[in-house]
């Protein structure tokens, strides 16, 4: 066993961390990744994790629910310890202020010094990144954009949550809890690895063209030259008053070849539609129709299982909207069980990261 999963629901920080440490036993991790309910005081948790695991690279974030033990959990901490048979090397960096456009470059300079090669020259088949980012910062798009500008390496991850309180989210590294920040980990796996990006939607024949947007506010004022909520409702054949009730099953998506990058509407305000991520003016969006999350995710995981010939560790960044949809349909247990035979942890995110910032998607990092 080269990766072990740990979990605890003990309510106090110290008891919870001691429980995790005990579960780790004699296992010798190279890194430890953890996802914690926002019910744990972030600063205390970060410090206690460092105290418990010493100089080991330990990083993580707060969640809107955890994934572990083949279940969707709440109010817990889940962790994964990976040894040097999976992780040959890693370097963790923190972007401490997401409003600073040079923050990514600073962390990348640390990576370059550590690995002795420019980020533009590191081989994307040998290195992979994890990103955990403040889920209330609204900075995910420009952060992922900048990462994509500066390297060909792929960073996969999620936006930290806070159990749907929408007050503050945290990322953890170096024994500290940070807000308005991102933790980046650049891994050099010792084994084969791959990424999964799965969303359960198909594109309908209808498209919406954003003709007036406030990009920073993630607001669309007009689609197709009409008030946004009116045009969206027309596209679905529903009344504008009922539009929001159809958002979960009918978000919109950017089409990149055969792939869909989902943009999920959040609310109607006046005649505007607000989204959970940026929408670009003048870029067509396909209206989407939901399919079966459990079946689609099972197929995506099985495909990687067959390709890699086995999965020794899986990290799942699963959108909170998927989690809520699964709960509504009574499918949480069925979804969790997809991961019961694999060492897997994850969390319900406020957004997923893969090339860009996306919604209603699960992004996963898998190791052979």
């Amino acid at each position: 066993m080269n990766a072990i999963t740990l979990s605890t629901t003990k309510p106090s920080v110290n008891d919870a961390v001691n429980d995790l440490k005990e579960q780790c036993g004699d296992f010798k991790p190279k890194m430890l990744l953890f996802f914690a309910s926002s019910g744990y005081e972030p600063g205390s948790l970060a410090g206690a994790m460092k105290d418990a695991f010493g100089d080991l690279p330990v990083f993580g974030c707060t969640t809107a629910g955890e994934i572990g033990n083949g279940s969707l959990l709440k109010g817990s901490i889940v962790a994964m310890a990976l040894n040097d048979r999976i992780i040959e090397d890693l370097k963790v960096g923190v972007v401490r202020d997401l409003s600073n456009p040079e923050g990514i470059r600073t962390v990348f300079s640390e990576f370059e010094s550590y690995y002795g090669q420019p980020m533009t020259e590191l081989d994307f088949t040998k290195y992979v990144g994890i990103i955990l980012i403040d889920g209330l910062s609204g900075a995910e798009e420009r952060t992922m954009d900048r990462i994509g500008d500066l390297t060909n390496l792929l960073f996969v991850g999620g936006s930290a949550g806070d159990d749907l309180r929408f007050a503050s989210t945290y990322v953890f590294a170096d024994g500290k809890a940070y807000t308005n920040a991102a933790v980046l980990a650049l891994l050099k796996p010792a084994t084969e690895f791959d990424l999964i990006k799965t969303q359960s939607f198909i594109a309908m024949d209808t498209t919406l063209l954003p003709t007036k947007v406030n990009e920073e506010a993630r607001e669309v004022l007009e689609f197709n030259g009409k008030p946004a909520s009116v045009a969206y409702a027309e596209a679905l054949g529903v009344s504008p008053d009922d539009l929001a009730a159809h958002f979960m099953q009918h978000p919109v998506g950017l089409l990149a070849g055969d792939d869909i990058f989902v943009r999920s509407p959040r609310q109607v305000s006046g005649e505007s539609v607000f989204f959970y991520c940026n929408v670009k003016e003048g870029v067509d969006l396909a209206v989407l129709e939901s399919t079966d999350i459990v079946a689609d995710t099972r197929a995506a995981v099985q495909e990687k299982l067959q390709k890699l010939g086995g999965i020794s560790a899986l990290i799942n960044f699963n959108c909170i909207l998927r989690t809520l949809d699964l709960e509504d349909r009574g499918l949480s247990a069925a979804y969790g069980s997809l991961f019961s035979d694999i060492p897997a942890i994850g969390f319900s995110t406020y957004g997923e990261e893969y090339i860009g910032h996306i919604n209603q998607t699960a992004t996963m990092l898998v190791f052979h």
Partner: protein
Amino acid sequence: MIETIIRERANGNPVLENTTRTKLVIKGFNPDKYTATSEDDPAKIAELKVIAKDMGITL
């Protein structure tokens, strides 16, 4: 310009070509929507120049 950006970043690697295309789609430039005969839009060209610069590409 779009094809130059893709070519420079991908350096002949089809996986990187696909990734770079996706990055451009997310930035608002779907390569499939532009051809050599597409009308030159000065604002779009200016945006592409900024993207190329951000990506470290000399056009």
